[in-house]
């Protein structure tokens, strides 16, 4: 099953690549439309839009998913129901492809809901309590986005069809479009885990590592960004876009800080994904959709590679994910640490790896166009924080001493996993330059002063020095976290946002509902409607029975009495 799906998806990737090159070189885009039903004034059509953006994204999605499925043949080989897992992954890929190729809100809804549902099924795949809670958090946060898209479908019925791309040019100043833009931004924020909804992404690391590599690094979380890229013409001078800018740079900043306090390997990688997502959203909301798309694609490559290396390491460490138990691994697993290092450095934006092209372009565009001081500071600070936690991770995992028990099982030669990682390694080295040659037919004009140009390097060097210094722990080091406990817990626990989604939502309502239940359901409503009315009726019935069980003569006499009364009152 694994091999079949790997070959199918790889072949699909090659087809997409061929068509992508053909379409972008000739400037083509193809639109298929099939009318399913037309009733009153709306017509439901199934449409497929193939332009270079959707083909490129499909190529990347199918590449990553084929490699991940091949990887999971070895990673999950002790799993009894591997076929179930592969089928879930394939259904996920199908929903993602449906989302990518659809210019039609209803098929976007199908893909979006499919993504949410299948990611829930994949997060709860290991059936323990932590996965259950993580799955609940994931599914319900995604559900808010689903509701928003449903409401958009309802509002778009004003225009007569659900193909939104036709209405952007004509209806920009309409009130309906205003509402739609608000809702689409909220939907994208829930899927891509921006600030009010960002607690599900670190929690969803309870999923198996191949799932994290596919879903939570490159496909599910980028669906929101992709949707906003498609809606970009609508949103570009709306007010909520500026709100999105604010929230996304805060997301970038917050997750960069929180990743520095984390000790769980997959959570660090999740928070770095969150930081890069914030970066993508913020550059999108500044008005550069193609750069956001570029960064989306290169990020997909190296983040999936990073997750896969983390998977190999977790297997080796006997399923321990805590980085305090690791150290010095670069000596024993050279090929895996090669992949880990290249993806980490690509994440930091080291020159001429793939991440450099997109990240550096973003930072230079931010410096070149005149934006807010806060925007500028947070962008560069977050870049520095990225380098900070990356170097901290490298120090903990690769360079410091090995901290696990004395039994070594550091086994690198699992060629299935390694071959899959090599594919992504190749792509994460080269995809930056290759994509920039394709997507940007002419380069952006950027003219910066010398120090501003080198600002990236200054910030990176500062971050790396700090990362090195923070990870030098000795027996006699002072635990500074305890000295600044309040601030540290604020920064470490993601600015208390998980409490907003979990404890804050459930505690108050459950408490209130307990009060209601005891006082009303088991209290007053028993007297006023349950047992109380029954007692009243029973008493009436008993009272009546006293009259029923009577002398027979009394009945007859009462009849005569009635007539006497009638006679007396009406004939005198």
């Amino acid at each position: 099953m694994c091999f079949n799906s790997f070959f199918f998806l790889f072949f699909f990737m090659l087809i997409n690549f061929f068509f992508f090159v053909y379409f972008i070189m000739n400037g083509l885009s193809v639109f298929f439309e099939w009318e399913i039903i037309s009733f009153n004034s709306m017509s439901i059509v199934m449409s497929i839009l193939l332009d270079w953006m959707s083909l490129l994204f499909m190529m990347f999605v199918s590449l990553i998913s084929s490699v991940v499925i091949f990887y999971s043949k070895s990673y999950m080989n002790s799993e009894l129901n591997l076929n179930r897992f592969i089928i879930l992954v394939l259904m996920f890929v199908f929903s993602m492809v449906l989302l990518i190729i659809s210019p039609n809100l209803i098929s976007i809804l199908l893909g979006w809901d499919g993504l949410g549902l299948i990611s829930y099924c994949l997060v709860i795949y290991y059936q323990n309590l932590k996965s259950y809670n993580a799955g609940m958090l994931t599914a319900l946060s995604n559900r808010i986005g689903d509701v928003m898209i449903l409401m958009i479908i309802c509002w778009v019925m004003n225009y007569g069809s659900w193909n939104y791309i036709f209405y952007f040019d004509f209806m920009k100043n309409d009130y309906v479009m205003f509402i739609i833009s608000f809702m689409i931004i909220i939907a994208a924020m829930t899927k891509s885990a921006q600030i009010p909804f960002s607690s599900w992404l670190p929690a969803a690391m309870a999923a198996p590592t191949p799932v994290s590599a596919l879903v939570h690094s490159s496909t599910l979380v980028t669906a929101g960004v992709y949707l906003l890229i498609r809606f970009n013409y609508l949103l570009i001078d709306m007010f909520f876009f500026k709100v999105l800018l604010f929230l996304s740079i805060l997301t970038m900043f917050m997750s960069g800080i929180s990743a520095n306090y984390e000790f769980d390997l997959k959570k660090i990688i999740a928070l770095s994904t969150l930081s890069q997502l914030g970066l993508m959203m913020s550059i999108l909301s500044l008005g550069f959709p193609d750069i956001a798309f570029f960064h989306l694609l290169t990020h997909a490559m190296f983040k999936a590679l990073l997750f896969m290396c983390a998977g190999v390491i977790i297997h080796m460490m006997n399923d321990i994910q805590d980085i305090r138990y690791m150290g010095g691994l670069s000596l024993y697993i050279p090929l895996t640490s090669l992949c880990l290092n290249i993806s980490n450095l690509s994440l930091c934006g080291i020159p001429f790896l793939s991440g450099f092209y997109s990240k550096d372009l973003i930072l230079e565009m931010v410096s070149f166009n005149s934006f807010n001081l806060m925007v500028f500071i947070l962008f560069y600070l977050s870049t520095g924080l990225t380098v900070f936690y990356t170097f901290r991770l490298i120090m903990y995992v690769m360079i410091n001493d090995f901290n696990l028990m004395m039994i070594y099982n550091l086994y690198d030669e699992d060629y299935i996993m390694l071959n899959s990682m090599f594919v992504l390694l190749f792509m994460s080295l080269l995809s930056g330059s290759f994509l920039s040659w394709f997507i940007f037919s002419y380069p952006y004009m950027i003219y910066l002063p010398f120090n501003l140009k080198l600002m990236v390097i200054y910030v990176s060097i500062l971050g790396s020095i700090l990362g090195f210094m923070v990870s030098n722990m000795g027996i006699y080091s002072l635990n500074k976290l305890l000295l600044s406990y309040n601030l540290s817990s604020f920064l470490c626990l993601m600015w208390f946002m998980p409490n907003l989604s979990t404890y804050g939502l459930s505690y108050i309502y459950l408490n209130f509902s307990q009060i209601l239940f005891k006082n009303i359901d088991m209290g007053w409503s028993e007297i006023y409607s349950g047992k109380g009315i029954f007692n009243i009726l029973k008493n009436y019935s008993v009272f009546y029975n006293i009259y029923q069980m009577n002398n027979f003569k009394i009945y007859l006499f009462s009849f005569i009495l009635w007539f006497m009364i009638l006679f007396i009152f009406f004939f005198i």
Partner: protein
Amino acid sequence: MFFFILTNNNSNKMFFLFILFFSTLISISSNSWFGCWIGLEINLLSFIPLISNSKNLLSVETSLKYFLTQSLASINFLFMILIKFSLLKNFNMNNIISIMMNSSLLMKMGSAPFHFWFPNIVEGLSWMNNFMLMTWQKISPMILLSYYFNKNFLIFMIIMNLIIGSLGGLNQTSLRKLLAFSSINNLGWMIFSIMISENLWLFYFLIYSMMIFMMISLFFLMNMYFMNQLFINNMNFFIKLNLLINFLSLGGLPPFMGFMPKWIIINFLLINKFYFLTFIFMMTSLIIIYYYIRIIYSSFMFNYFKMKWVNLLMKNNMSLINLSSFISISSMILSTFIFM
């Protein structure tokens, strides 16, 4: 009834049964009030031999009670007819005379507030005699009521019927008394339907008597008179299902047959803006359904009480039971094909 009479080798009773039928026909098809009264008297006279059985002291007492009440009502009826002729010279006006005539007819029927004899007598009769009392004996007083009724008085009586029928039955354990109180309640619906149209009354009456027939024949075949006898015997599934369906149909629950006449009456009520009366109809129906369900709820639970050492042999009568269940369930839907 025929079956019962034939099995008991009592052909005298067959004779009285025929006279009973003819007396009702005389009463409802006569030109003058006097003829109506004659029909009522012959009705009384021919019913008494049907219910009295000189070997049983209880049935003798019951027949005596029945005779006393009905004859008092008939005397009153005759007297009021004569007063009407002499005072009003054959003019029909809606006044006190109509109230008096209606109350004597109501006593004949066993409707509130003159209903006190009804549960007592029902307790003393066998099931088939009860069936006669609850269905056939109501025809002629009802139709006579429709000839000369006082609307305000009758609406007040309807409300009393409904309330007494529902509240009185809450505290009963005898199945006969329960059906008696339900009959008083249904009398309320029937009197209102007479005020709307006689056709509607006929419809309600037919469906009601069909449902009562199914219930009573079931109880008769199983020889059950009290609530504690209901589930002690080991009834098979179809009998319990039949019991369930027929009781719910009698209570007026929607997919069953008994809902249809009540629906039509409520339709009329709401169109003609009798809102408060609708409310009373609804609420008393709920109380009635409560005590029906109290009887039958054990039959539709998964865990029910079953005594295995008592066996109920009902092999010969299954077709009647199946047919009656089928009719109760499917009549509403099949009627849409007929009355399309």
